[in-house]
């Protein structure tokens, strides 16, 4: 089928009517759509993001539909959308008009919501999201603190549209950018907008996308390729997954635009097989785009052809590295190539290739429709636009947030993330996953962009952000990340294969109280050597967690090796359990100790034989008066 711009606009007009209410969310409460077009149906929007999906979003939807049927309500629509971002409180649902935000909704809550909210317009207060009530006032979702400072470009459609509906994507300006590029712009003009916008790669390295496209465009070849890097191997990061699952067409459209710009007719999406939901939704999206003529031959009646195929990765972190990824697509072992050729010149099967990250691509369509200036008006000079972060660790609002570049760490962690739970104290934030570094409190006011994070020894990376509190041992954190790197090293080059393993062994010794002061010097020199001489980014950045923790928390390392003490009280083997004089002699600890190393008579203070103690912490848990401490 061949699609025209008129047909596209027709679909848009028709579909928008059914979606108007939800657009309140997109426009922060202001419905920009002509009221005449508004359908007056109520809308129940269920989060189908990774977290909510696994805690039963589909069942929730079914239950809502059944109950709505039973109540014979004819003016209510129910749909599932992509990730809302606030995964911590899922399953989340929103009800429009109004944007009432319910959290931790269980299947048994559905009847009550339908009976009260949908039938009688009564808010079910007990299910409201914690952030949606302030001083007894009920706030709509877009005024909840978590969302207020966010600005959504890459996630613009996530949480609003039905991911399986190409029409809903089109309704929110989907495929307009492709239409504009193909029918109104030359290849050079597309590249020019991308260059002027200074959109930088969101996959980690921050390379300017426009410049990359230009290099591939200028290199003549009989075949060129566009690859979407959806390998997302960073532990804890799930923004790419959320985009693929919640708004797959934005990636397809961007790939086609890139294909047009560089002169390619074939795209590949390299996605990890552990993302079966994303794969399924991508497959559906590709099929629907093809049916509509938005992929395939002569798109919008032009000479331009573009097809997209999916390639599954087996879940190796290193396969996210561009050259290893291409090896993997070519059917070889996923190991990085020597950097003798540029990918934009000789990439996949030796042909000019563009590899872009999912989030980078999701930014492309709005840049084409709104222009370079628009993107540059958001974020910083160095890093225009927004960045999505996956907030995790010791933070109240675990989830996905998209903020303008230049937002400070403090704003992200405290204003949006809600700060540290359980009355604990902030200690550090780890950004950039296993390739990144730990940033201490003194840098909390650092604006987040590519350059600033680099300056303080960390990286933007793919946007992982793990918050640590004062019970986290920094040596152990470094060990944790290195453990991941050692597992994921491909084994090709010596410094990474052998060096990271030795570094891990040293850290393991330190956390077990077997380290020496010389080990610290060793760690430093080894870190340098691995960074300086590894083949790919994995090895080159593998030492960052160690380097940054040694820089900012050297005293913790020293306490481990000199005093055999873990200041955070986290390294089990360095701790001793001890019973204070608070003990009432109830015998509970002695009865529960699996090593039978607690002695004492009834109603007398008990004693732990520290030689025998296996440091399991059972005594501490069972003591009714808190007499057991670790020190």
């Amino acid at each position, binding site marked *: 089928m061949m699609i025209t711009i008129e047909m596209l606009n027709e679909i848009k007009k028709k579909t928008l009517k059914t979606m108007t209410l939800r657009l309140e969310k997109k426009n922060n409460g202001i419905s920009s759509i002509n009221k005449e077009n508004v359908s007056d149906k109520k809308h129940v929007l269920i989060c189908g993001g990774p977290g909510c999906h696994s805690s039963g979003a589909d069942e929730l939807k079914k239950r809502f539909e059944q109950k709505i049927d039973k109540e014979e309500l004819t003016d209510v629509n129910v749909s599932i959308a992509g990730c809302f971002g606030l995964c911590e409180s899922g399953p989340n649902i929103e009800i429009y008009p109004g944007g009432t935000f319910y959290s931790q909704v269980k299947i048994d809550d559905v009847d009550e919501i339908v009976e009260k909210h949908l039938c009688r317009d009564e808010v079910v207060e007990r299910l409201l999201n914690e952030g949606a009530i302030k001083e007894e006032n009920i706030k709509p979702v877009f005024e909840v603190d978590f969302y207020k400072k966010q600005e959504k470009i890459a996630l613009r459609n996530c949480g609003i549209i039905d991911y399986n509906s190409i029409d809903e994507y089109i309704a929110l300006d989907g495929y307009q950018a492709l239409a504009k590029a193909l029918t109104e712009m030359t290849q050079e003009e597309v590249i020019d907008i991308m260059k002027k916008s200074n959109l930088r790669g969101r996959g980690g390295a921050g390379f300017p996308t426009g410049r990359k496209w230009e290099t591939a465009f200028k290199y003549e070849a009989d075949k060129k390729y566009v690859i979407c890097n959806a390998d997302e191997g960073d532990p804890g990061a799930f923004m790419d997954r959320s985009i693929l699952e919640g708004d797959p067409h934005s990636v397809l459209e961007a790939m086609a635009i890139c294909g047009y710009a560089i002169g390619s007719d074939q795209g590949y999406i390299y996605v990890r097989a552990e993302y079966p939901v994303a794969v399924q939704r991508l497959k559906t999206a590709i099929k629907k785009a093809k049916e509509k003529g938005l992929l395939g031959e002569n798109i919008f009646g032009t000479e331009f052809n573009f097809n997209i195929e999916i390639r599954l990765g087996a879940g*190796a972190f290193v396969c996210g590295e561009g050259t290893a990824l291409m090896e993997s697509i070519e059917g070889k*072992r996923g*190991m990085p190539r*020597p*950097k*003798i050729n540029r990918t934009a010149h000789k990439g996949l099967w030796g042909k000019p290739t563009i590899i872009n990250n999912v989030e980078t691509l999701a930014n492309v369509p709005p840049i084409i429709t709104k222009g370079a200036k628009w993107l540059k008006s958001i974020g910083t000079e160095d890093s225009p636009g927004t960045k999505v972060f996956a907030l995790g660790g010791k933070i109240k609002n675990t989830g996905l947030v998209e903020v303008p570049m230049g937002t400070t760490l403090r704003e992200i962690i405290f204003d949006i993330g809600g700060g540290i739970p359980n009355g604990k104290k902030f200690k550090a934030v780890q950004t950039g996953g296993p390739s990144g570094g730990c940033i201490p409190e003194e840098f909390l006011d650092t604006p987040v962009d590519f350059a600033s994070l680099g300056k303080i020894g960390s990286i933007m990376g793919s946007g992982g952000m793990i918050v640590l509190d004062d019970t986290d041992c920094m040596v152990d954190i470094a060990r944790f990340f290195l453990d991941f790197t*050692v*597992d*994921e*090293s*491909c*084994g*090709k*080059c*010596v*410094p*990474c*294969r*052998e*060096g*990271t*393993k*030795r570094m891990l*062994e040293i850290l393991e010794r330190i956390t077990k109280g077997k380290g020496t002061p010389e080990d610290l010097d060793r760690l430093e*020199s*080894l870190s340098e*050597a691995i*960074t*300086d*001489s*590894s*083949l790919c980014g994995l090895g*080159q950045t593998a030492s960052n967690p160690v380097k940054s923790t040694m820089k900012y928390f050297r005293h913790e390392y020293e306490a481990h090796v000199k005093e055999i003490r873990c200041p955070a009280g986290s390294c089990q083997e360095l701790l001793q359990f001890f019973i204070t004089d608070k003990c009432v002699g109830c015998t509970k600890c002695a009865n529960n100790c699996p090593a039978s190393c607690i002695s004492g008579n009834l109603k007398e203070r008990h004693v732990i034989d520290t030689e025998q103690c296996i440091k399991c912490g059972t005594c501490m848990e069972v003591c009714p008066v808190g007499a057991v401490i670790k020190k």
Partner: protein
Amino acid sequence: MAEITINAKKYQVNSGITILEACNRLGISIPTLCHDDRLEPYAACRLCVVEVKGKKNLQTSCSTKIRDGMVVETHNKRVINARKEVLDLLFSNHPEDCLTCEKAGGCKLQDYCYEYGVEEGTYVGEKKDYHIDDSNPFYTYDPNKCILCGKCVRVCDELQCTNAIGLGNRGFDSKVVTPFDLGLATSNCVSCGNCVAVCPVGALTPKKKEKYRTWEIRKVKTTCSYCGVGCQIELLVKGDKVVGVEPARGTPNDGLLCVKGRFGYSFINHSDRLKAPLIKRNGEFEEATWEEAYDLIIDKISEIKEEYGSESFAGLTSARCTNEENYLFQKMFRALIGTNNVDHCARL
């Protein structure tokens, strides 16, 4: 041409070549364990790193092309430290049995450790502990000595095109394996030994009939006599005995061989081997001189030709002869004996 500065000296070199190639041509020695100019650049051992002005990290000279105006340091402190670290890491995960290792004297790891003053592997921790694969009749594979340079795998893939071996597992556990790590005997290895020839360490070693040390042998270059290709080989000679064969570089075989040329040399010292012509006298074979033998052949041929004619002859020559020898043989049959009844075993 491009002008580059290496170690503060300016040189004119061809553009398009790598730093390593340039240094080789200029006589600047750069260590490498994984490079082979017949194979695609691999850049895995990281021993050939050099400092290139303007680059944040060290660059591998095997995979960095010369650019005009490039400034390179090949032996400054930073570079040497990185190389030492690589050697230290490799040796820390390597058996310390150089005294008895077959490769001693010919081992690149040993040579470079000596050159860079790496006396021991200073990292303590896990070490490889694999079974030795003894299942191939011609060579032994000891994974514990393997430094994972990947040369064997790449030779087998890129040059030999047999693809009998590959890399298995990941990271620290990486290992050169046959499919499913079932051992060489089960694989489609053709025993050409080309992997053995490129292994820089003692991981792949020929099974020897005779003990020898690399410094005890002389190398004698000759042409392999198994077929007419004319592969160049080096006989390893200890005293006056051939104790092994290695492929020589250059045309036509450029460092490759087949199983026969590589491992089929023991006939040289075999007791059954004929070293002089034999003539049957009174029902018994007796050693004779070549003159006697030639005279006898001439007599017999003349006799038969006279009595039964040229067409009573047939000649069959061997693929083990050279082209020139085969040419002479057919010439003898056609011009001298006068028959076209002449053929060659390779046609059968």
